[in-house]
């Protein structure tokens, strides 16, 4: 991202109405990031079976999120899925793994253990009480262990955060972490339906929406909305 963040916004500033282009970049980059999360699987105990094995299986199928390319190496991953208890002896390793990952990096902490220490919170002399004591966490997925659906819900939450959050002008600016508890009564089918909707929605580029969202300097607003009709067909085909 170095070239884009350092050089491009400056270069584009000179183009009349260049702001439009920069904002579009944000959306495209965030869209691409959100849909190709490559997880580093950090499974230490029980949660790993549900989070990393059952989700990889044919029933739940992590692949539909574009997140099935599980990497055992931190250098090739941008999403750290923590599954399982973290104990004091493992903590420095976890920190190292996180630091070895390239920006932008995201962390999903699954299971009670990575949130607070879980069943081992009292009287344990080794457990780390929550992964956020060691590394910043973006999405918490509660449960002991969470159902695979819950991880998917967490992934959807993270994707939403990525799409709305970062701009390339301020790389690495962290949003507040969120807890992604599965609302009651939501089934796997609901989540799969939500996924499908998202995919369909993303295949159509809504230029008008993007233009409306922009904050224009006063006076520019009328001109741009007139222009956007022409843009609509052209940009839509391109993506």
């Amino acid at each position, binding site marked *: 991202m170095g070239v884009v963040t350092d050089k491009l916004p400056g270069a584009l500033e000179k183009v009349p109405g260049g702001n439009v282009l920069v904002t579009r970049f944000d959306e495209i980059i965030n869209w691409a990031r959100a849909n190709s999360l490559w997880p580093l699987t950090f499974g230490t105990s029980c949660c790993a*079976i549900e989070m990393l*094995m059952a989700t*990889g299986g044919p029933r739940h199928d992590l692949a539909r999120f574009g997140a099935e390319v599980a990497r*055992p190496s931190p250098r090739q991953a941008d999403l750290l899925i923590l599954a399982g*208890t973290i*104990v004091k002896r*493992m903590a420095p390793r976890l920190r190292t793994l996180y630091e070895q990952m390239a920006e932008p990096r995201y962390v999903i902490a699954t299971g009670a253990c990575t949130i607070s220490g879980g069943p081992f919170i009292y009287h*344990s002399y080794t457990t780390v009480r929550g992964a956020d004591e060691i590394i910043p966490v973006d999405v918490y997925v509660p449960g002991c262990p969470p159902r695979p659906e819950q991880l998917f819900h967490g992934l959807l939450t993270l994707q939403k955060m990525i799409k709305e959050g970062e701009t390339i002008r301020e790389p690495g600016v962290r949003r507040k972490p969120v807890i992604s508890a599965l609302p009651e009564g939501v089934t796997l089918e609901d989540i799969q339906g939500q996924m499908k909707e998202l995919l369909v929605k993303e295949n159509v580029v809504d230029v008008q929406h993007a233009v409306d969202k922009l904050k224009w300097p006063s006076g520019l607003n009328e001109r741009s909305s007139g222009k956007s009709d022409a843009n609509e067909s052209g940009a839509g085909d391109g993506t």
Partner: protein
Amino acid sequence: MTIEVSSLKELVEQASGDDRSPDTQEYFVNMGPQHPSTHGVLRLVLKLDGERVLRCIPVLGYIHRSIEKISEHMNYMNCVHLTDRMDYLSSIMNNWAVSKAVEEAAGIEVNSRIQYIRTIFAELERIQSHQLWWGVLGMDLGAFTPFLYGIRDREVLNDVMEETVGARLTMNYVLPGGLMADIHPNFVHRVKEFIKYFRPKLDEYDDLLTNNVIIQERLRNVGVLSAQTAVQYGATGPVLRGSGVAFDLRKDHPYGVYDQADFEVPVGTVGDSWDRYWVRVEEMRQSLNIVEQLLDNIPPGDFLVKKLNSKIKIPEGRYYSQLETARGILGVFIASDKKDEPYRMHYRSPNFNNLWCLEPMIKGDYIASLIGAMSSLDLVIPDIDR
């Protein structure tokens, strides 16, 4: 047999000290604790000569959660639920082991309905555990398809059990004095359907992996563990039986209602990875048989002997009880001082002893064989560290 006790540091110094030969150099490689094929957070320090493994030293503690210590602050009803998190693939059997120990110590008699249901669930879970192991073994040897097959069938069984238990992995179903809930009205019917579904699938497993030449070449005569070494190291479960020792608590010291069922204990001959593989696949067939025989005879009765409060008191003394989980013998040791909390709780976990068989198995073999051999041990690391 002599047991050398030396620290890791000494070993490393030793190795660099006696490197005198001009053309070969021995070196150490760390495998883990974050490694895709150690199934969790096992760290192996390997001393290699080229590709040959000279020593293989497991280093533990990366998932030590101090379950035994926490148990000392809990009453007997509560410490059952921590055992789910030890060997999470045998969670019901772990619950049962503690419940059995507490029941024997406190003199609680459970009725035969409870025993039937416990036995059926234990066998179902054994199948589930072996299904996962089967898939992961394929994946470790470089074949991804078995993993998909194994998980697919595991989900089918998971649904059946979830209906009764309410959880997918950490089931918390067995308690001292009974069960958490009665079986679901659909349970018997659905298990029968599962048996009908899974029998042909086992033949499919055979076509896919068991009769596959590549798998046979990778497993046969790799990681040979002699019967004598297995006994010396205290290996249990399929690892011991793969080495040709027909010792199974279900047969030799029956608990639950295993004495009512007619089943065989598969035993290997050579003690290589292939034998351990074969024993486990065969065990799935036997478990299906056991479940099938018991399913129709579940007697009526309560699922809990009486409403037990959390204050079960155990007379002063030391108690030990054991049963056969999917990986071997899980022993539960309780030292009681008449309170409702244990004075000391100790678990003899099957994986711990099985892990140490890795070094005699793999010494002198190629590092590539190590992965297959380790996979055939079917280790669950949180059970080793507790």
